[in-house]
């Protein structure tokens, strides 16, 4: 996600600097979009078709990222209040309310410039029911065309031919034509293929970065640190040379950390001790992101893997974008996003991560706003404990509504959980 680090060690890594520049450039281009006659497409992170969008010279905007940015900048509380005042229910997704509130407050984006209005809403209906309503709402506000891409759900852990065909057919007959209409030109399949090749390369490096966590100590934090790593690949940059360069740099930096047996960087500097290796399920809290991170890092807990970082694409089970079958692989990519997977598959993936990364425990951050993630997590908790034998922790918070982050309560639960792990370790050792 395009986020900034507030507390930094003296020298920024090259990859971090590159990422900052990429994001700044992107928002700068967005701010000039209207005057330059560039067309803007709003879409979602799960099932984002960045290669397609950029191949047609369109600029993508991701309202989810705007919302999480607002959360990190402590603006979301006020935006949500605006939306609720306008009649939106307290029970619904706070990303949506934050977006509505931001719109009503002038639609100023994370970098302080006004975001351009959409020329098209690409409703990538992947893994989340709320997306449908979100863009229905935005359509009412902007009165612009919407194109629906219904990505069928994978209840049984496999992509059938019918599912793939349905997505490919929609791409061919509805999505691409809609994008072409907005762009005023035809899609060049060769260009698309070229971008997919670049995606493939970046994905290889990203997976290597994820897998570096197998080392002891893990050189990365696969959750808090991980949300920075997924920024380029899940937002406007997959399929670009910039992204390839970023992930290549990142991989090299991580490899170097492994050589030097270094742990990850935390908000308080270099992690000195890897006391607990954890897998985390669920999105992070954005309004208190660094506080939340510190609750882990200060106890010596490193997150070795997470599922949220697969929400915009799952690559470590083998999938890569494939330039030889562009539309098929775009379809498979969408179908494979984490929240589009059935609960049994998600549980299996978590089990795999816990075992592969030799986790001491796993934690579920159950987020009030997100039923897609949250409904069923309590069953997943019990099932994973049974299958892996490691204890599961359970905390509750929200995406961007600051009212739902109870610092004392969360700290209490986390500390109790980690002390429990500690006590268990002592027993196992003795």
């Amino acid at each position, binding site marked *: 996600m395009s986020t900034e680090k507030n507390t930094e060690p003296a020298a920024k890594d090259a990859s971090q600097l590159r990422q900052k520049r990429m994001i700044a450039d992107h928002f700068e281009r967005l701010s000039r979009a209207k005057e330059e006659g560039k067309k803007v497409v709003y879409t979602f992170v799960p099932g984002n078709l960045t290669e397609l969008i950029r191949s047609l010279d369109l600029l993508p905007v991701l309202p989810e990222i705007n919302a999480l940015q607002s959360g990190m900048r402590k603006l979301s509380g006020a935006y949500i209040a605006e939306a609720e005042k306008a009649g939106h*229910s307290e029970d619904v997704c706070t990303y949506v309310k934050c977006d509505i509130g931001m719109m009503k407050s002038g639609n100023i984006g994370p970098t302080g410039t006004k975001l351009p209005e959409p020329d098209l809403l690409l409703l990538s209906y992947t893994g989340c029911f709320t997306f449908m309503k979100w863009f229905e709402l935005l359509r009412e506000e902007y009165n612009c065309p919407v194109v629906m891409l219904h990505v*069928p759900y994978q*209840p049984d852990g496999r992509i059938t031919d*019918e599912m793939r*065909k349905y997505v490919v057919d929609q791409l061919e007959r509805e999505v691409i034509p809609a994008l072409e209409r907005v762009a005023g030109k035809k899609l060049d399949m060769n260009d698309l293929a070229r971008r997919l090749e670049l995606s493939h390369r970046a994905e290889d490096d990203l997976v290597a970065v994820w897998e570096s966590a197998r080392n002891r100590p893990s050189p990365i934090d696969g959750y808090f640190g991980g949300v920075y790593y997924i920024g380029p690949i899940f937002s406007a940059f997959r399929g670009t040379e910039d992204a390839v360069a970023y992930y290549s740099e990142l991989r090299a930096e991580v490899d170097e950390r492994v050589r030097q047996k270094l742990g990850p960087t935390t908000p308080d500097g270099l992690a000195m001790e890897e006391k607990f290796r954890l897998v985390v399920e669920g999105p992070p809290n954005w309004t208190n992101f660094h506080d939340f991170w510190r609750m882990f890092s200060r106890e010596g807990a490193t997150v070795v893997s997470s599922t949220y970082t697969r929400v915009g694409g799952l690559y470590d089970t083998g999938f890569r974008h494939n330039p030889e079958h562009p539309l098929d692989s775009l379809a498979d990519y969408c179908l494979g996003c984490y929240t589009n997977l059935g609960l049994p598959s998600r549980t299996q993936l978590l089990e795999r991560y816990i075992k592969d990364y030799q986790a001491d425990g796993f934690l579920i951050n159950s987020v009030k706003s997100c*039923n897609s993630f949250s409904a069923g997590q309590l069953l997943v908790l019990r099932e994973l404990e049974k299958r892996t034998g490691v204890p599961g922790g359970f905390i509750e918070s929200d995406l961007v509504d600051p009212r739902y982050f109870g610092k004392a309560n969360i700290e209490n639960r986390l500390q109790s959980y980690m002390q429990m792990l500690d006590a268990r370790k002592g027993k196992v050792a003795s």
Partner: protein
Amino acid sequence: MNDQPSTGAAGDPAAELLTRARRLSDDLSFGAVRDWKAGHPGRLAVGYMPIYAPRPLLEAIGCLPVAVFGGGDQLDIIRGDSYFQSYICHIPRSKVELAVSGRLDLFDGMLFPSICDVIRNLGGMWAMLFPDRYGAYLDLPQNFDPELGGRFYAGELRRIAGGLRERGALPLDDDALRDAIVRENTRREVLEELDELRCREPWRVRASEAYLVARAGGVLEADAHTKFIREFLDAAREREARVYDNVRVVIRGSFCEQPPFGLIKTLEAAGCDIVDDDFQLGLRSIEGPIQLEEGQDPLDALARAYVLNGAPTASRYIGELVKGASLIKQVRNANAEGVIFAAASFCDPALLDQPMLEAALDREKIPHTSLKFSENTGQFQVIREQAGAFSDAVKLWGSAA
């Protein structure tokens, strides 16, 4: 507050039918399903979550489709709550409670249509809790091109028919499906008669009564339900009834987790004639009869009916339609004076739709109010007052103010 027309009392020709309907709706042991299975040995009973299931398909392969609406307000949730956080609606809890307490053991299969993420994930939970039982997600299409979404949906229907075949259902047969569609269309027709009667003469048939009669169909084959509705209509037409001066309202938002029966009665007692609603959406998800041409593939017809004539519900993409247009049409057709949004707490589809629908009503100056419930809400005082105030305001000023 108005007195109620004397229905259901001694001397009411429809009393016995209503009692039967109430029993069928309330029976959490699904006695009617048990009886059906006993009378049709070897045949399968397939449950489904609310909103929509392709009942004719299920009947065509010899199954009894059963709507499982959750535990209502009669079920103590002991274990169901341990599966869900507090900010998730109530119906999955009672569904799980029914399941783990064995009450759903008699079902040979369970369908989970794509209503929302909670029900979607519930399907996955089902697979994990009962790996040996047949459970299937029904991915209703959000693309309404018959060649695209329609074809995908036909594939879904075939997949489910195939899955049930493996469990002992009959093979999918065109003639059987044709017949089932015809029977469904007949039931639909008769249901429309009921809706029309209760809309035109709410003093003769209360919405709460029409509700029971419609809901009873959840455990009956189409034919049996048609017969039941016809009996009720005959009895209702013989009733003595006085006209009362209530406000005519449309209820929106209660399509999945059902409001407790007492809530519907409370609204009526507070001065509202509920002239249209979306309570039993599953039976009215397709607008009008399923069009079936001579020589047309019936599965194709069923699929087309859904994509081309599917009702714009909260769980369905609005596409090219205007948001709120169908609600306004509903209000006009029913000659209603206002809309009450009654959504289950935490219901994403209903609550996310609501602001858009309210805006549409505002543009047409149709008064509205809104409330939330859960299927086991026990006290209606606040709702009574709110509904009463709304009906009074509409009567006096023609607005919600």
